[in-house]
């Protein structure tokens, strides 16, 4: 958190984005300190390669610096959006393909049901997500992890696990319903 003022620590994401638009480097540093840990964990889990994860982490925040003027905080949550972009990029690298048109940097709106701007909320959410994932059956959890962290489709998961396609679809649908229920409760 080096170099941050109390104002930056308390500032909302929207205020910090506005400062970045005005080329305030300390605002970018504040957002980095707020969300780098979350993104680093996600990228390392997907890529299992610290160097590749750090390259993408740096690039995602650099793109935020370059494109902040086009980001409308009213359209969605910054951390959710950063997580979507980081995941897309990591999976693209994992699968050695370039992001498709649908994964364009600024065209994705993400609405997160909670405000993640302070560390305490992030810590509480971490516990809730962990519990929600642990409540899934072993097979459901494995299928969700293959989808989210490895970017596999229904067919690819069925091929990987050897389970019938219908079983995989049902398993993931049930898991998604369960996560939705537990995360929103």
């Amino acid at each position: 958190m080096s170099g941050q003022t109390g104002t930056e620590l308390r500032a909302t994401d929207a205020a910090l984005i506005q400062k970045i638009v005005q080329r305030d480097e300390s605002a970018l540093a504040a957002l980095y300190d707020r969300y780098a840990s979350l993104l680093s964990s996600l990228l390392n889990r997907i890529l299992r390669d610290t160097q590749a994860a750090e390259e993408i982490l740096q690039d995602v925040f650099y793109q935020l610096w370059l494109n902040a003027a086009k980001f409308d905080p009213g359209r969605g949550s910054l951390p959710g959006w950063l997580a979507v972009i980081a995941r897309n990029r990591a999976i693209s690298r994992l699968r050695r393909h370039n992001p498709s048109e649908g994964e364009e940097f600024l065209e994705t709106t993400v609405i997160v049901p909670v405000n993640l701007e302070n560390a305490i909320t992030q810590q509480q959410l971490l516990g809730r997500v962990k519990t929600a994932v642990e409540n899934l059956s072993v097979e459901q959890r494995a299928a969700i992890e293959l989808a989210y962290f490895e970017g596999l489709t229904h067919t690819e998961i069925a091929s990987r696990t050897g389970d019938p396609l219908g079983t995989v679809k049902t398993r993931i649908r049930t898991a998604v319903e369960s996560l939705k229920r537990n995360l929103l409760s």
Partner: protein
Amino acid sequence: MNGHPTRPEDFDLYALGVLEGEEKAAIESHVPTCAECAKKLAEARGRIALLAFSAPRVEPSPAVRERLMRQVHASAEIAGAKRVQPELERTGGFFGRWWAAVLVPACILLLFVAAHLRNENERLSRELAQEQATLQQQQLASERQQKQLDEARHVANLVEAKDTVIVPLAQQKGMPQGTAHVMYNARMGMMMYEGKLEPSPAGKSYQLWLVPTSGAPISAGVFNPTTGETTHTMMKVPQGVTAKAFAITLEPAGGKPQPTGPFVLMGAVS
């Protein structure tokens, strides 16, 4: 499909990335035309994005932040230089028009010269493109070197600090063979793991944990070493956290948010 998707969870499945073929195409063709479904998809993306919190905690190296801020600072300087350019072009506009008036009668003669200049310009453009590509490669190489230097500096600071402690990690009975230690400095909030372990069993990964004086263990890295490979991991310890021990467990491939597997190596901070 022109109507709304019939199953609400289809948006979550799309955000998760598991849909394919017609199911995927149906969402992609409908959502751009329907504000209600676009909002549902944005909410589904947000729910699915929360799964990022289930990844084991891995703090980025402090060098990433430093490189990012250097990159941002350099781009701000370039942008500043570019803003000066239009002003110069505008100042030259008056003279440009004056010269144009003088040169119009001579245009026909200059056509031949222009053709030659165009060819020359194309040749120079090609050379310039090559130069730019070379420059970009050199820049990437330079960034890589800078990254290595940053990391080396952090290692040197950690090693040289008098209050850095070395925590040997002891082999646990019946577990894969290995030797490792962690260099830890509570004041600097830095730790560095160095160790050599047998390759992890199929479907398993080794996971390094920082055990704080209070609270749950914090993941400090997941690794799958190959034969004879020494693994190094450096991590910034989260603010306010003091380590009382370090441990390595054997976890399902990719690691877990909290330790679930057996301890392979373990050592307490003295």
